[in-house]
Protein backbone atom coordinates (compact mmCIF):
# COMPACT_ATOMS: atom_id res chain seq x y z
CA UNK A 1 0.00 0.00 0.00
CA UNK A 2 2.76 2.38 0.95
CA UNK A 3 4.57 1.50 -2.29
CA UNK A 4 1.65 2.37 -4.52
CA UNK A 5 1.16 5.64 -2.69
CA UNK A 6 4.79 6.46 -3.29
CA UNK A 7 4.40 5.75 -6.99
CA UNK A 8 1.27 7.89 -7.16
CA UNK A 9 2.89 10.75 -5.27
CA UNK A 10 6.01 10.62 -7.45
CA UNK A 11 3.97 10.63 -10.64
CA UNK A 12 2.28 13.90 -9.91
CA UNK A 13 -0.92 12.71 -11.64
CA UNK A 14 -3.75 10.57 -10.24
CA UNK A 15 -3.06 7.86 -12.82
CA UNK A 16 -0.39 5.23 -12.74
CA UNK A 17 0.64 2.16 -14.69
CA UNK A 18 -1.01 0.18 -11.91
CA UNK A 19 -4.35 1.95 -12.40
CA UNK A 20 -4.14 1.06 -16.07
CA UNK A 21 -3.47 -2.57 -15.20
CA UNK A 22 -6.44 -2.63 -12.79
CA UNK A 23 -8.73 -1.22 -15.46
CA UNK A 24 -7.45 -3.45 -18.23
CA UNK A 25 -7.72 -6.55 -16.04
CA UNK A 26 -11.19 -5.57 -14.91
CA UNK A 27 -12.40 -4.93 -18.45
CA UNK A 28 -10.87 -8.18 -19.67
CA UNK A 29 -12.53 -10.09 -16.85
CA UNK A 30 -15.90 -8.45 -17.42
CA UNK A 31 -15.84 -9.13 -21.16
CA UNK A 32 -14.76 -12.72 -20.58
CA UNK A 33 -17.49 -13.19 -17.99
CA UNK A 34 -20.11 -11.81 -20.36
CA UNK A 35 -18.97 -14.10 -23.17
CA UNK A 36 -18.93 -17.11 -20.85
CA UNK A 37 -22.51 -16.25 -19.84
CA UNK A 38 -23.84 -16.44 -23.40
CA UNK A 39 -23.91 -20.27 -23.70
CA UNK A 40 -25.78 -20.39 -20.39
CA UNK A 41 -28.40 -17.99 -21.78
CA UNK A 42 -28.58 -19.36 -25.32
CA UNK A 43 -29.05 -22.98 -24.17
CA UNK A 44 -32.62 -21.98 -23.37
CA UNK A 45 -33.43 -21.00 -26.98
CA UNK A 46 -35.09 -23.65 -29.19
CA UNK A 47 -32.77 -26.59 -29.79
CA UNK A 48 -31.96 -27.85 -33.29
CA UNK A 49 -34.41 -30.76 -33.20
CA UNK A 50 -37.14 -28.33 -32.17
CA UNK A 51 -36.26 -26.01 -35.05
CA UNK A 52 -36.28 -28.96 -37.45
CA UNK A 53 -40.05 -29.40 -37.12
CA UNK A 54 -40.59 -26.32 -39.23
CA UNK A 55 -43.07 -27.25 -41.99
CA UNK A 56 -46.37 -29.13 -42.24
CA UNK A 57 -48.18 -30.27 -45.40
CA UNK A 58 -51.98 -30.38 -45.39
CA UNK A 59 -54.39 -32.07 -47.79
CA UNK A 60 -57.31 -29.69 -48.29
CA UNK A 61 -59.55 -31.94 -50.43
CA UNK A 62 -61.83 -33.27 -47.64
CA UNK A 63 -62.80 -29.78 -46.42
CA UNK A 64 -66.26 -28.61 -47.52
CA UNK A 65 -67.28 -24.98 -47.90
CA UNK A 66 -68.00 -23.55 -44.45
CA UNK A 67 -65.86 -26.15 -42.68
CA UNK A 68 -62.74 -25.57 -40.62
CA UNK A 69 -59.90 -27.86 -39.65
CA UNK A 70 -57.10 -27.47 -37.15
CA UNK A 71 -53.61 -28.72 -37.97
CA UNK A 72 -50.50 -28.61 -35.83
CA UNK A 73 -47.52 -26.60 -37.03
CA UNK A 74 -44.50 -26.06 -34.77
CA UNK A 75 -46.64 -27.34 -31.90
CA UNK A 76 -49.18 -24.60 -32.51
CA UNK A 77 -52.68 -25.04 -33.90
CA UNK A 78 -53.27 -23.59 -37.37
CA UNK A 79 -56.86 -22.85 -38.38
CA UNK A 80 -57.75 -23.58 -41.99
CA UNK A 81 -61.22 -22.39 -42.88
CA UNK A 82 -62.87 -22.83 -46.26
CA UNK A 83 -64.91 -19.66 -46.14
CA UNK A 84 -68.44 -19.23 -47.50
CA UNK A 85 -69.26 -16.47 -49.96
CA UNK A 86 -70.94 -14.51 -47.16
CA UNK A 87 -67.86 -14.76 -44.96
CA UNK A 88 -65.54 -13.60 -47.75
CA UNK A 89 -67.94 -10.78 -48.53
CA UNK A 90 -68.03 -9.69 -44.90
CA UNK A 91 -64.25 -9.84 -44.51
CA UNK A 92 -63.67 -7.85 -47.69
CA UNK A 93 -66.12 -5.01 -47.14
CA UNK A 94 -65.31 -3.85 -43.62
CA UNK A 95 -63.85 -0.34 -43.40
CA UNK A 96 -60.18 -0.61 -42.46
CA UNK A 97 -60.48 2.41 -40.17
CA UNK A 98 -62.72 0.34 -37.88
CA UNK A 99 -59.98 -2.23 -37.24
CA UNK A 100 -57.58 -2.11 -34.29
CA UNK A 101 -54.91 -3.73 -36.49
CA UNK A 102 -55.86 -2.59 -40.01
CA UNK A 103 -55.12 -5.10 -42.75
CA UNK A 104 -57.18 -5.82 -45.89
CA UNK A 105 -58.56 -9.33 -46.26
CA UNK A 106 -56.76 -9.71 -49.60
CA UNK A 107 -53.42 -9.48 -47.80
CA UNK A 108 -54.38 -12.20 -45.37
CA UNK A 109 -55.92 -14.81 -47.65
CA UNK A 110 -53.91 -15.68 -50.74
CA UNK A 111 -56.96 -17.46 -52.16
CA UNK A 112 -60.13 -15.81 -50.80
CA UNK A 113 -61.75 -19.21 -50.24
CA UNK A 114 -59.00 -20.40 -47.91
CA UNK A 115 -58.16 -18.57 -44.72
CA UNK A 116 -55.07 -19.95 -42.99
CA UNK A 117 -54.16 -18.40 -39.63
CA UNK A 118 -52.26 -19.45 -36.52
CA UNK A 119 -54.96 -20.27 -33.98
CA UNK A 120 -53.26 -18.64 -31.03
CA UNK A 121 -54.86 -15.58 -29.50
CA UNK A 122 -52.46 -12.64 -29.75
CA UNK A 123 -53.40 -11.54 -26.27
CA UNK A 124 -52.01 -14.28 -24.06
CA UNK A 125 -51.86 -17.38 -26.21
CA UNK A 126 -55.15 -19.22 -25.63
CA UNK A 127 -56.78 -21.16 -28.48
CA UNK A 128 -59.84 -19.21 -29.63
CA UNK A 129 -63.17 -21.00 -30.01
CA UNK A 130 -64.94 -21.20 -33.36
CA UNK A 131 -63.44 -24.26 -35.05
CA UNK A 132 -65.99 -26.84 -33.96
CA UNK A 133 -69.66 -26.64 -34.91
CA UNK A 134 -71.59 -25.21 -31.99
CA UNK A 135 -68.63 -23.15 -30.73
CA UNK A 136 -69.15 -19.51 -29.87
CA UNK A 137 -67.69 -17.64 -32.81
CA UNK A 138 -67.88 -14.18 -31.30
CA UNK A 139 -69.71 -11.11 -32.46
CA UNK A 140 -67.98 -11.02 -35.85
CA UNK A 141 -68.53 -14.63 -36.94
CA UNK A 142 -64.89 -15.64 -36.80
CA UNK A 143 -63.40 -16.78 -33.51
CA UNK A 144 -63.88 -15.93 -29.87
CA UNK A 145 -61.19 -16.32 -27.23
CA UNK A 146 -62.81 -17.45 -23.99
CA UNK A 147 -59.86 -16.51 -21.80
CA UNK A 148 -60.10 -12.76 -21.92
CA UNK A 149 -62.90 -12.12 -24.39
CA UNK A 150 -61.25 -11.25 -27.73
CA UNK A 151 -63.44 -11.36 -30.85
CA UNK A 152 -61.94 -12.13 -34.27
CA UNK A 153 -63.73 -11.70 -37.60
CA UNK A 154 -63.96 -14.03 -40.61
CA UNK A 155 -60.51 -12.89 -41.71
CA UNK A 156 -59.02 -13.67 -38.28
CA UNK A 157 -58.64 -9.97 -37.53
CA UNK A 158 -59.05 -8.64 -34.01
CA UNK A 159 -62.25 -6.63 -33.72
CA UNK A 160 -63.00 -6.35 -30.02
CA UNK A 161 -61.30 -7.28 -26.75
CA UNK A 162 -57.80 -7.06 -25.27
CA UNK A 163 -55.82 -8.76 -28.05
CA UNK A 164 -53.61 -6.21 -29.83
CA UNK A 165 -53.01 -7.98 -33.17
CA UNK A 166 -54.79 -10.03 -35.81
CA UNK A 167 -54.31 -13.80 -35.76
CA UNK A 168 -50.98 -14.17 -37.57
CA UNK A 169 -50.91 -15.62 -41.06
CA UNK A 170 -48.13 -18.22 -41.32
CA UNK A 171 -46.05 -18.35 -44.46
CA UNK A 172 -47.63 -21.00 -46.69
CA UNK A 173 -47.59 -22.16 -50.27
CA UNK A 174 -50.17 -24.00 -52.37
CA UNK A 175 -48.31 -26.97 -53.83
CA UNK A 176 -51.47 -27.82 -55.82
CA UNK A 177 -55.15 -26.91 -55.60
CA UNK A 178 -55.68 -29.26 -52.72
CA UNK A 179 -52.27 -29.36 -51.02
CA UNK A 180 -50.75 -26.61 -48.94
CA UNK A 181 -47.39 -26.46 -47.19
CA UNK A 182 -47.26 -24.35 -44.06
CA UNK A 183 -43.94 -22.99 -42.90
Amino acid sequence: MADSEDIRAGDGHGETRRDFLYLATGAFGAAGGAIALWPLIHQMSPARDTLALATTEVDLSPIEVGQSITVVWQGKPVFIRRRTEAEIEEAGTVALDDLPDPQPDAERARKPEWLIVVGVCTHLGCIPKGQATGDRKGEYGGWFCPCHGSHYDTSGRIRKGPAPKNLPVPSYEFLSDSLVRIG
Partner: protein
Amino acid sequence: MTQPWMKNRLVQWIDYRLPMFSFAEKELIDYPTPRNLSYWWNFGSLAGIVLVIMIVTGIVLAMHYTPHVDHAFDSVERIMRDVNYGWLIRYIHTNGGSAFFIIVYIHIFRGLYYGSYKSPREILWILGVVILLCMMATAFMGYVLPWGQMSFWGATVITNLFSAVPIVGDIIVTWLWGGFTVDNPTLNRFFSLHYLMPFVIVGVVVLHLVSLHQHGSNNPLGIDAKGPQDKIPFHPYYTVKDMFGLSAFLTIFAGFVFFAPNFFGEPENYIPADPLLTPPHIVPEWYFLPYYAILRSITFDIWFLSAKLIGVVLMFGSILVLFLVPWLDRSPVRSARYRPIYKQLFWVLVIDCVVLGWVGGNPPEGIFVIIGQIATLYYFAHFLVLMPLLSVIETPRPLPTSIAEPVLGGGSGPPAAAPQTMEKAQ
Protein backbone atom coordinates in the same frame (compact mmCIF):
# COMPACT_ATOMS: atom_id res chain seq x y z
CA MET B 1 -28.06 -14.19 31.14
CA THR B 2 -25.79 -17.05 30.26
CA GLN B 3 -27.41 -20.36 29.46
CA PRO B 4 -26.27 -23.29 31.66
CA TRP B 5 -25.09 -25.30 28.67
CA MET B 6 -22.65 -22.55 27.81
CA LYS B 7 -20.55 -23.76 30.78
CA ASN B 8 -20.07 -27.16 29.13
CA ARG B 9 -16.41 -27.59 28.10
CA LEU B 10 -17.26 -29.18 24.73
CA VAL B 11 -19.74 -26.42 23.96
CA GLN B 12 -17.11 -23.86 24.85
CA TRP B 13 -14.50 -25.63 22.70
CA ILE B 14 -16.79 -25.61 19.69
CA ASP B 15 -18.11 -22.11 20.30
CA TYR B 16 -14.59 -20.72 20.42
CA ARG B 17 -14.07 -22.05 16.88
CA LEU B 18 -17.62 -21.82 15.47
CA PRO B 19 -19.77 -19.40 17.50
CA MET B 20 -23.03 -21.22 16.87
CA PHE B 21 -23.97 -21.48 20.53
CA SER B 22 -23.39 -17.85 21.38
CA PHE B 23 -25.17 -16.93 18.14
CA ALA B 24 -28.22 -18.98 19.16
CA GLU B 25 -28.11 -17.46 22.62
CA LYS B 26 -27.96 -13.93 21.25
CA GLU B 27 -30.48 -14.21 18.41
CA LEU B 28 -32.92 -16.90 19.55
CA ILE B 29 -32.93 -16.82 23.34
CA ASP B 30 -31.91 -13.46 24.78
CA TYR B 31 -32.98 -11.51 21.67
CA PRO B 32 -34.88 -8.57 23.20
CA THR B 33 -38.38 -8.31 21.76
CA PRO B 34 -41.12 -5.74 22.41
CA ARG B 35 -43.28 -7.04 25.24
CA ASN B 36 -46.56 -6.12 23.55
CA LEU B 37 -46.48 -8.16 20.32
CA SER B 38 -49.91 -9.47 19.37
CA TYR B 39 -50.76 -12.66 17.51
CA TRP B 40 -50.40 -10.74 14.25
CA TRP B 41 -46.66 -11.06 14.89
CA ASN B 42 -46.88 -14.87 14.65
CA PHE B 43 -47.02 -14.95 10.89
CA GLY B 44 -43.35 -14.32 10.19
CA SER B 45 -42.10 -17.41 12.00
CA LEU B 46 -45.11 -19.31 10.70
CA ALA B 47 -44.10 -18.45 7.13
CA GLY B 48 -40.57 -19.70 7.87
CA ILE B 49 -41.90 -23.01 9.17
CA VAL B 50 -44.16 -23.47 6.14
CA LEU B 51 -41.15 -22.77 3.89
CA VAL B 52 -39.32 -25.65 5.58
CA ILE B 53 -42.38 -27.91 5.19
CA MET B 54 -42.55 -27.03 1.49
CA ILE B 55 -38.84 -27.76 0.93
CA VAL B 56 -38.98 -31.10 2.76
CA THR B 57 -42.13 -32.35 1.00
CA GLY B 58 -40.87 -30.96 -2.31
CA ILE B 59 -37.55 -32.80 -2.14
CA VAL B 60 -39.43 -36.01 -1.42
CA LEU B 61 -41.90 -35.46 -4.28
CA ALA B 62 -39.02 -34.85 -6.70
CA MET B 63 -37.85 -38.41 -5.98
CA HIS B 64 -40.99 -39.73 -7.69
CA TYR B 65 -41.80 -37.05 -10.26
CA THR B 66 -40.83 -37.25 -13.96
CA PRO B 67 -40.44 -33.89 -15.74
CA HIS B 68 -41.45 -35.02 -19.21
CA VAL B 69 -44.64 -34.09 -21.09
CA ASP B 70 -45.46 -37.77 -21.67
CA HIS B 71 -44.93 -38.84 -18.08
CA ALA B 72 -45.43 -35.85 -15.77
CA PHE B 73 -49.19 -36.22 -15.33
CA ASP B 74 -48.94 -40.00 -14.86
CA SER B 75 -46.07 -39.72 -12.41
CA VAL B 76 -48.12 -37.36 -10.27
CA GLU B 77 -51.06 -39.78 -10.36
CA ARG B 78 -48.64 -42.55 -9.41
CA ILE B 79 -47.54 -40.46 -6.43
CA MET B 80 -51.21 -40.16 -5.46
CA ARG B 81 -52.06 -43.86 -5.86
CA ASP B 82 -48.99 -46.04 -5.57
CA VAL B 83 -46.19 -44.27 -3.72
CA ASN B 84 -46.33 -44.92 0.02
CA TYR B 85 -47.93 -41.89 1.65
CA GLY B 86 -47.49 -40.09 -1.67
CA TRP B 87 -51.04 -38.73 -1.42
CA LEU B 88 -50.26 -37.25 1.99
CA ILE B 89 -46.98 -35.68 0.95
CA ARG B 90 -48.45 -34.20 -2.21
CA TYR B 91 -51.53 -32.84 -0.46
CA ILE B 92 -49.30 -31.23 2.17
CA HIS B 93 -47.23 -29.69 -0.62
CA THR B 94 -50.18 -28.37 -2.67
CA ASN B 95 -52.12 -27.06 0.33
CA GLY B 96 -48.86 -25.81 1.81
CA GLY B 97 -48.55 -23.51 -1.18
CA SER B 98 -51.94 -21.97 -0.43
CA ALA B 99 -51.16 -21.77 3.28
CA PHE B 100 -47.84 -20.06 2.54
CA PHE B 101 -49.61 -17.33 0.59
CA ILE B 102 -52.35 -16.85 3.20
CA ILE B 103 -49.70 -16.47 5.89
CA VAL B 104 -47.51 -14.15 3.86
CA TYR B 105 -50.45 -11.97 2.80
CA ILE B 106 -51.49 -11.61 6.45
CA HIS B 107 -47.85 -10.84 7.29
CA ILE B 108 -47.74 -8.12 4.62
CA PHE B 109 -51.05 -6.55 5.67
CA ARG B 110 -49.80 -6.64 9.27
CA GLY B 111 -46.79 -4.64 8.11
CA LEU B 112 -49.01 -2.18 6.27
CA TYR B 113 -51.33 -1.69 9.25
CA TYR B 114 -48.62 -1.13 11.83
CA GLY B 115 -46.25 0.80 9.56
CA SER B 116 -43.53 -1.83 9.90
CA TYR B 117 -41.93 -0.58 6.67
CA LYS B 118 -40.98 2.79 8.15
CA SER B 119 -37.50 3.86 9.16
CA PRO B 120 -35.31 2.05 10.08
CA ARG B 121 -37.00 -1.01 8.53
CA GLU B 122 -37.19 0.01 4.84
CA ILE B 123 -34.72 -2.63 3.66
CA LEU B 124 -36.42 -5.26 5.82
CA TRP B 125 -39.66 -4.44 3.96
CA ILE B 126 -37.99 -4.43 0.54
CA LEU B 127 -36.47 -7.85 1.20
CA GLY B 128 -39.95 -9.03 2.13
CA VAL B 129 -41.31 -7.87 -1.24
CA VAL B 130 -38.41 -9.68 -2.94
CA ILE B 131 -39.42 -12.84 -1.08
CA LEU B 132 -43.01 -12.38 -2.27
CA LEU B 133 -41.84 -12.09 -5.89
CA CYS B 134 -39.68 -15.22 -5.54
CA MET B 135 -42.62 -17.07 -3.99
CA MET B 136 -44.86 -16.10 -6.88
CA ALA B 137 -42.34 -17.35 -9.45
CA THR B 138 -41.88 -20.59 -7.50
CA ALA B 139 -45.59 -21.20 -7.08
CA PHE B 140 -46.29 -20.48 -10.74
CA MET B 141 -43.63 -22.93 -11.95
CA GLY B 142 -44.68 -25.55 -9.41
CA TYR B 143 -48.26 -25.40 -10.63
CA VAL B 144 -47.08 -26.24 -14.15
CA LEU B 145 -45.36 -29.47 -13.11
CA PRO B 146 -48.42 -31.80 -12.83
CA TRP B 147 -49.04 -30.98 -16.52
CA GLY B 148 -52.81 -30.81 -16.24
CA GLN B 149 -54.96 -28.51 -18.35
CA MET B 150 -54.64 -25.56 -15.95
CA SER B 151 -50.90 -26.20 -15.67
CA PHE B 152 -50.46 -25.96 -19.41
CA TRP B 153 -52.78 -23.05 -20.07
CA GLY B 154 -51.68 -21.14 -17.01
CA ALA B 155 -48.11 -21.48 -18.25
CA THR B 156 -49.16 -20.38 -21.73
CA VAL B 157 -50.98 -17.28 -20.53
CA ILE B 158 -48.31 -16.20 -18.05
CA THR B 159 -45.31 -16.75 -20.35
CA ASN B 160 -47.21 -14.86 -23.05
CA LEU B 161 -47.25 -11.84 -20.74
CA PHE B 162 -43.66 -11.25 -21.80
CA SER B 163 -44.71 -10.94 -25.44
CA ALA B 164 -46.11 -7.54 -24.43
CA VAL B 165 -42.54 -6.23 -24.16
CA PRO B 166 -42.06 -3.94 -27.17
CA ILE B 167 -39.88 -5.20 -30.06
CA VAL B 168 -38.13 -8.11 -28.30
CA GLY B 169 -41.27 -9.58 -26.71
CA ASP B 170 -41.63 -12.55 -29.05
CA ILE B 171 -37.92 -13.34 -28.86
CA ILE B 172 -38.13 -13.41 -25.06
CA VAL B 173 -41.15 -15.72 -25.12
CA THR B 174 -39.52 -18.18 -27.53
CA TRP B 175 -36.43 -18.14 -25.33
CA LEU B 176 -38.52 -18.81 -22.21
CA TRP B 177 -40.31 -21.71 -23.93
CA GLY B 178 -37.28 -23.21 -25.66
CA GLY B 179 -39.59 -23.76 -28.64
CA PHE B 180 -42.65 -22.31 -30.32
CA THR B 181 -45.13 -23.26 -27.61
CA VAL B 182 -45.09 -24.37 -24.01
CA ASP B 183 -43.65 -27.86 -24.43
CA ASN B 184 -41.19 -30.35 -23.02
CA PRO B 185 -38.22 -27.93 -22.84
CA THR B 186 -40.46 -25.54 -20.89
CA LEU B 187 -41.51 -28.24 -18.43
CA ASN B 188 -37.90 -29.31 -17.88
CA ARG B 189 -36.61 -25.84 -17.09
CA PHE B 190 -39.57 -25.07 -14.86
CA PHE B 191 -38.80 -28.20 -12.84
CA SER B 192 -35.17 -27.18 -12.52
CA LEU B 193 -36.06 -23.64 -11.44
CA HIS B 194 -38.88 -24.75 -9.15
CA TYR B 195 -36.31 -26.82 -7.28
CA LEU B 196 -33.84 -23.92 -7.17
CA MET B 197 -36.08 -21.04 -6.14
CA PRO B 198 -36.94 -22.19 -2.59
CA PHE B 199 -33.25 -22.07 -1.73
CA VAL B 200 -33.03 -18.56 -3.16
CA ILE B 201 -35.97 -17.72 -0.89
CA VAL B 202 -34.10 -19.19 2.08
CA GLY B 203 -31.19 -16.91 1.24
CA VAL B 204 -33.36 -13.79 1.11
CA VAL B 205 -35.15 -14.89 4.30
CA VAL B 206 -31.76 -14.98 6.05
CA LEU B 207 -31.11 -11.40 4.92
CA HIS B 208 -34.66 -10.48 6.01
CA LEU B 209 -33.89 -11.85 9.50
CA VAL B 210 -30.49 -10.16 9.74
CA SER B 211 -32.19 -6.90 8.86
CA LEU B 212 -34.99 -7.60 11.37
CA HIS B 213 -32.60 -8.34 14.22
CA GLN B 214 -30.62 -5.17 13.55
CA HIS B 215 -33.37 -3.02 15.09
CA GLY B 216 -35.79 -5.66 16.36
CA SER B 217 -39.49 -6.09 15.70
CA ASN B 218 -41.92 -3.25 15.33
CA ASN B 219 -44.90 -3.53 17.68
CA PRO B 220 -48.63 -2.75 17.75
CA LEU B 221 -48.01 0.73 19.20
CA GLY B 222 -45.47 1.52 16.50
CA ILE B 223 -43.22 3.38 18.96
CA ASP B 224 -39.60 2.54 19.70
CA ALA B 225 -38.63 0.77 22.90
CA LYS B 226 -37.46 3.31 25.45
CA GLY B 227 -35.50 0.92 27.63
CA PRO B 228 -35.20 -2.63 28.97
CA GLN B 229 -38.63 -2.40 30.61
CA ASP B 230 -40.18 -2.35 27.12
CA LYS B 231 -38.60 -5.61 25.97
CA ILE B 232 -38.62 -9.24 27.00
CA PRO B 233 -36.33 -12.07 25.90
CA PHE B 234 -37.50 -13.99 22.85
CA HIS B 235 -37.28 -17.28 24.73
CA PRO B 236 -39.48 -18.44 26.35
CA TYR B 237 -42.03 -15.67 25.81
CA TYR B 238 -42.23 -15.66 22.04
CA THR B 239 -41.01 -19.17 21.39
CA VAL B 240 -44.02 -20.42 23.34
CA LYS B 241 -46.34 -17.91 21.66
CA ASP B 242 -45.08 -18.94 18.21
CA MET B 243 -45.46 -22.63 19.14
CA PHE B 244 -49.04 -22.04 20.22
CA GLY B 245 -49.78 -20.19 16.97
CA LEU B 246 -48.12 -23.00 15.04
CA SER B 247 -50.35 -25.57 16.77
CA ALA B 248 -53.45 -23.60 15.86
CA PHE B 249 -52.25 -23.28 12.27
CA LEU B 250 -51.36 -26.98 11.94
CA THR B 251 -54.81 -27.96 13.26
CA ILE B 252 -56.54 -25.93 10.54
CA PHE B 253 -53.99 -27.03 7.94
CA ALA B 254 -54.49 -30.72 8.77
CA GLY B 255 -58.23 -30.13 8.40
CA PHE B 256 -57.68 -29.11 4.79
CA VAL B 257 -55.08 -31.80 4.03
CA PHE B 258 -57.23 -34.63 5.34
CA PHE B 259 -60.80 -33.47 4.79
CA ALA B 260 -60.75 -30.98 1.89
CA PRO B 261 -57.45 -31.52 0.10
CA ASN B 262 -58.69 -30.12 -3.20
CA PHE B 263 -60.48 -27.13 -1.70
CA PHE B 264 -57.98 -24.66 -3.18
CA GLY B 265 -57.43 -26.61 -6.41
CA GLU B 266 -59.05 -26.59 -9.83
CA PRO B 267 -60.77 -29.81 -10.96
CA GLU B 268 -59.67 -28.92 -14.50
CA ASN B 269 -56.07 -29.68 -13.54
CA TYR B 270 -56.92 -33.37 -13.13
CA ILE B 271 -57.36 -33.46 -16.92
CA PRO B 272 -54.05 -34.07 -18.74
CA ALA B 273 -52.70 -31.09 -20.70
CA ASP B 274 -54.04 -30.74 -24.24
CA PRO B 275 -52.14 -28.14 -26.29
CA LEU B 276 -54.98 -27.91 -28.82
CA LEU B 277 -57.85 -27.32 -26.43
CA THR B 278 -58.08 -24.28 -24.19
CA PRO B 279 -60.36 -24.84 -21.19
CA PRO B 280 -63.48 -22.65 -21.33
CA HIS B 281 -62.47 -20.67 -18.27
CA ILE B 282 -58.81 -20.29 -17.34
CA VAL B 283 -58.22 -19.16 -13.80
CA PRO B 284 -54.95 -19.01 -11.91
CA GLU B 285 -54.61 -20.29 -8.37
CA TRP B 286 -56.56 -18.17 -5.87
CA TYR B 287 -53.49 -16.32 -4.63
CA PHE B 288 -52.91 -14.84 -8.11
CA LEU B 289 -56.52 -13.80 -8.74
CA PRO B 290 -56.14 -10.11 -7.73
CA TYR B 291 -53.20 -9.65 -10.10
CA TYR B 292 -55.10 -11.48 -12.82
CA ALA B 293 -58.01 -9.07 -12.34
CA ILE B 294 -55.64 -6.11 -12.72
CA LEU B 295 -54.16 -7.65 -15.87
CA ARG B 296 -57.59 -8.04 -17.43
CA SER B 297 -58.98 -4.70 -16.28
CA ILE B 298 -57.26 -2.79 -19.09
CA THR B 299 -59.46 -3.24 -22.16
CA PHE B 300 -58.48 -0.07 -24.00
CA ASP B 301 -55.36 1.33 -25.66
CA ILE B 302 -53.84 4.56 -24.41
CA TRP B 303 -52.07 6.47 -27.19
CA PHE B 304 -49.54 4.08 -28.72
CA LEU B 305 -49.58 1.70 -25.75
CA SER B 306 -51.60 -1.45 -26.31
CA ALA B 307 -54.13 -2.62 -23.74
CA LYS B 308 -52.08 -5.78 -23.34
CA LEU B 309 -48.87 -3.92 -22.50
CA ILE B 310 -50.60 -1.64 -20.01
CA GLY B 311 -52.32 -4.60 -18.36
CA VAL B 312 -49.02 -6.43 -17.96
CA VAL B 313 -47.22 -3.33 -16.66
CA LEU B 314 -49.97 -2.67 -14.12
CA MET B 315 -49.99 -6.28 -12.99
CA PHE B 316 -46.27 -6.23 -12.23
CA GLY B 317 -46.65 -2.65 -11.01
CA SER B 318 -49.13 -3.75 -8.36
CA ILE B 319 -46.27 -5.61 -6.64
CA LEU B 320 -43.50 -3.16 -7.54
CA VAL B 321 -45.43 -0.28 -5.97
CA LEU B 322 -44.91 -2.03 -2.63
CA PHE B 323 -41.17 -1.33 -2.96
CA LEU B 324 -41.97 2.39 -2.79
CA VAL B 325 -44.30 2.23 0.21
CA PRO B 326 -41.65 3.35 2.77
CA TRP B 327 -41.27 6.58 0.78
CA LEU B 328 -44.89 7.04 -0.25
CA ASP B 329 -46.04 7.06 3.37
CA ARG B 330 -44.35 10.11 4.93
CA SER B 331 -46.34 10.06 8.16
CA PRO B 332 -43.98 9.80 11.15
CA VAL B 333 -46.53 7.69 13.03
CA ARG B 334 -46.16 3.98 12.34
CA SER B 335 -49.20 2.26 13.85
CA ALA B 336 -52.65 2.70 12.32
CA ARG B 337 -53.99 2.72 15.89
CA TYR B 338 -52.99 6.36 16.07
CA ARG B 339 -53.92 7.22 12.49
CA PRO B 340 -57.73 7.54 12.36
CA ILE B 341 -58.05 8.03 8.59
CA TYR B 342 -55.29 5.64 7.52
CA LYS B 343 -56.87 2.95 9.68
CA GLN B 344 -60.10 3.14 7.69
CA LEU B 345 -58.35 3.32 4.34
CA PHE B 346 -56.33 0.25 5.29
CA TRP B 347 -59.52 -1.76 5.58
CA VAL B 348 -60.82 -0.31 2.32
CA LEU B 349 -57.61 -1.59 0.70
CA VAL B 350 -58.16 -5.04 2.20
CA ILE B 351 -61.71 -5.08 0.80
CA ASP B 352 -60.40 -3.79 -2.53
CA CYS B 353 -57.93 -6.69 -2.77
CA VAL B 354 -60.71 -9.19 -1.96
CA VAL B 355 -62.89 -7.60 -4.65
CA LEU B 356 -60.02 -7.86 -7.15
CA GLY B 357 -59.66 -11.53 -6.24
CA TRP B 358 -63.37 -12.09 -6.75
CA VAL B 359 -63.31 -10.33 -10.13
CA GLY B 360 -60.21 -12.32 -11.14
CA GLY B 361 -62.10 -15.56 -10.55
CA ASN B 362 -64.99 -14.55 -12.80
CA PRO B 363 -65.19 -14.35 -16.58
CA PRO B 364 -64.08 -10.99 -18.03
CA GLU B 365 -67.55 -9.93 -19.12
CA GLY B 366 -70.23 -7.39 -18.27
CA ILE B 367 -70.22 -5.94 -14.78
CA PHE B 368 -66.99 -7.71 -13.77
CA VAL B 369 -65.01 -5.60 -16.24
CA ILE B 370 -66.28 -2.36 -14.69
CA ILE B 371 -65.81 -3.53 -11.10
CA GLY B 372 -62.30 -4.76 -11.96
CA GLN B 373 -61.42 -1.38 -13.47
CA ILE B 374 -62.67 0.56 -10.46
CA ALA B 375 -60.90 -1.78 -8.02
CA THR B 376 -57.66 -1.54 -10.02
CA LEU B 377 -57.86 2.23 -10.04
CA TYR B 378 -58.47 2.28 -6.30
CA TYR B 379 -55.57 -0.10 -5.61
CA PHE B 380 -53.07 2.23 -7.23
CA ALA B 381 -54.77 5.34 -5.85
CA HIS B 382 -54.35 3.96 -2.34
CA PHE B 383 -50.58 3.77 -2.67
CA LEU B 384 -49.81 6.57 -5.09
CA VAL B 385 -52.34 9.22 -4.04
CA LEU B 386 -53.92 8.52 -0.65
CA MET B 387 -50.76 7.41 1.18
CA PRO B 388 -48.71 10.53 0.34
CA LEU B 389 -51.77 12.74 0.83
CA LEU B 390 -52.57 11.37 4.29
CA SER B 391 -49.01 12.03 5.41
CA VAL B 392 -49.85 15.71 5.01
CA ILE B 393 -53.51 16.09 5.95
CA GLU B 394 -54.03 13.52 8.71
CA THR B 395 -53.74 14.53 12.36
CA PRO B 396 -52.53 11.52 14.31
CA ARG B 397 -53.79 10.78 17.80
CA PRO B 398 -51.31 11.26 20.67
CA LEU B 399 -48.83 8.42 21.04
CA PRO B 400 -48.24 6.66 24.37
CA THR B 401 -44.97 7.60 26.01
CA SER B 402 -43.67 4.04 26.22
CA ILE B 403 -44.54 0.44 25.42
CA ALA B 404 -44.62 -0.48 29.10
CA GLU B 405 -47.14 2.22 30.01
CA PRO B 406 -50.29 0.89 28.30
CA VAL B 407 -49.29 -2.74 28.93
CA LEU B 408 -48.99 -2.16 32.66
CA GLY B 409 -52.37 -0.42 32.74
CA GLY B 410 -51.14 3.13 32.48
CA GLY B 411 -49.15 2.95 35.73
CA SER B 412 -45.70 4.35 35.24
CA GLY B 413 -44.60 2.13 38.16
CA PRO B 414 -41.00 1.27 38.88
CA PRO B 415 -39.76 0.68 35.32
CA ALA B 416 -37.30 -2.06 36.19
CA ALA B 417 -39.71 -4.10 38.31
CA ALA B 418 -41.38 -6.18 35.62
CA PRO B 419 -38.29 -7.43 33.76
CA GLN B 420 -36.72 -8.49 37.05
CA THR B 421 -39.65 -10.72 37.84
CA MET B 422 -39.35 -12.26 34.41
CA GLU B 423 -35.71 -13.03 34.85
CA LYS B 424 -36.58 -14.93 37.98
CA ALA B 425 -39.29 -16.81 36.19
CA GLN B 426 -36.74 -18.04 33.72
